[in-house]
């Protein structure tokens, strides 16, 4: 199968957003001295830059000067507490995605079969006679793939900067259509073939139609948060499976390494496209497209009935908080005060879908090629440790960080060392019945 452009686009834009942790998280532990210029310093850790203007005359006035010592200690504690909570909130979806991918790889042989078909982005074959030639081909494949990604990322950022929102939305809709309908159709077909079931077209049509339509609505419009999260996990898993199947072996590993480096560069360097994307979104006080980011908390408060999860956005003028604190309040004012019982609000942490995809590709490849649970488990643990460290750094630096490099680095190290060192060791121990 030669994947069409839209398939690659979807991959690319997810990669494009790979590292963006929403900088709003910096609201975690504000020191009054470090709050960004356009927000009002506040004691409440949940007040973000975006909500800053909304809180302008509220607590801000009172809390502004109170960067006390005890507030700092309190904030530290709250930071840790929320930091730990957010780590768990991200562990679960990442784990789920990897579990789906590994389960599919182990049961549906289609995705781990050797095939000579490749994506058009990796044209060089790995069926060559010599090791050197194979290595060269995989490096060339990587170069092509990474350049495509870079071009797409820059294109996305340029479009965003010049406010071509319609175009971007159309692009995203097209790519999620492809993922939700076509790839899940293929996936379903393979699962049925594996279990040797007879299924008729009408039934399949009904299933795919429902799955796809609900998915489109959930991702691009409104829907229950958990359903949206589930769909994002599923499409990341589908995309990862496509990569696992169609990327040649060595190219996959080199690509994983190269994309982590690109991620690092794109997010941290001042002119990096991803950094510019995040900063532009921040300047304009807009959320980054929901189709590209997994968010562990709600984004919109309009029409949402759960005040606990509501994000106070600067554009939101209705504040239930105000309602709670002041009783009946008919008129709408842009500035609100944040009452004391706001501490339950949780903005959550955001992780780009590209991160999910590449973590799953790593673990899936380990499961497909090693064929062995030690390696798979080792990679899984490595990625989670990397994610933990990344979130720790996020809490320290309070800005958008690349989520790929640390995890992928650990994952690669663990994969190769387990595959070449630990596995033969364990096999030998078992063969000689030698228990340590």
């Amino acid at each position, binding site marked *: 199968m030669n994947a069409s452009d839209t398939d690659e686009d979807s991959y690319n834009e997810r990669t494009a957003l790979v590292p963006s942790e929403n900088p709003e998280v910096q609201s975690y532990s504000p020191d009054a001295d470090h709050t960004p210029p356009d927000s009002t310093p506040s004691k409440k850790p949940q007040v973000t830059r975006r909500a800053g203007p909304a809180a302008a005359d509220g607590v801000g006035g009172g809390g502004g000067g109170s960067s006390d010592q005890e507030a700092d200690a309190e904030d530290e504690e709250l930071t840790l507490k929320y930091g730990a909570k957010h780590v768990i909130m991200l562990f679960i979806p990442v784990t789920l995605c990897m579990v789906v991918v590994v389960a599919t790889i182990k049961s549906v042989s289609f995705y781990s079969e050797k095939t000579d078909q490749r994506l058009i982005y990796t044209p060089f074959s790995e069926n060559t006679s010599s090791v050197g030639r194979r290595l060269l081909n995989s490096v060339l494949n990587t170069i092509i793939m990474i350049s495509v990604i870079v071009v797409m990322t820059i294109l996305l950022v340029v479009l965003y900067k010049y406010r071509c929102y319609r175009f971007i939305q159309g692009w995203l809709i097209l790519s999620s259509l492809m993922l939700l309908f076509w790839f899940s159709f293929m996936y379903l077909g393979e699962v049925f073939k594996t279990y*040797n079931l007879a*299924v*008729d077209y009408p*039934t399949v049509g*009904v299933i795919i139609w429902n799955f796809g339509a609900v998915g489109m609505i959930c991702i691009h419009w409104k829907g229950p948060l958990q359903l949206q999260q589930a769909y994002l996990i599923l499409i990341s898993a589908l995309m990862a499976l496509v990569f696992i199947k169609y990327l040649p072996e060595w190219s996959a590993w080199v690509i994983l390494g190269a994309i982590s480096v690109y991620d690092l560069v794109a997010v941290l360097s001042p002119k990096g496209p991803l950094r510019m994307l995040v900063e532009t979104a921040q300047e304009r006080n807009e959320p980054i497209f929901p189709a590209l980011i997994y968010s562990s908390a709600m984004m919109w*408060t309009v*029409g949402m009935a759960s005040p606990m999860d509501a994000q106070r956005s600067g554009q939101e003028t*209705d504040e*239930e908080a105000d309602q709670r604190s002041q009783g009946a309040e008919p008129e709408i004012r842009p500035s609100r005060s944040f009452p004391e019982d706001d501490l339950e609000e949780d903005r959550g942490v955001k992780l780009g879908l590209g991160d999910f995809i590449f973590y799953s590709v790593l673990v899936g490849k380990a499961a497909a090629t090693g064929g062995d649970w030690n390696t798979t488990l080792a990679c899984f643990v490595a990625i989670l440790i990397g994610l933990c460290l990344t979130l720790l750094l996020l809490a320290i630096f309070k800005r958008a960080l690349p989520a790929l490099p640390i995890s992928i680095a650990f994952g690669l190290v663990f994969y190769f060392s387990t595959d070449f060192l630990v596995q033969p060791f364990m096999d030998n121990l078992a063969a000689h019945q030698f228990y340590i």
Partner: protein
Amino acid sequence: MNLERLPNEEKLSLCRKYYLDVKRSALGLLLWTAVLTTWITIFQHFRAEWGEVGDYLSFTIPLGIP
């Protein structure tokens, strides 16, 4: 529109409207379950006997003797 801001009667009427939608949705679910179950049973039972039509309708055809 903020949920807490609405006066109680409006909240009640909203609730009623949504509940109606929920009831219709439940009805639709029942209907579709019935239709699909019937169709799937018929298909699985008679697929082999229908010969060519059965194959034409099939998305995946299992291997082996039916």
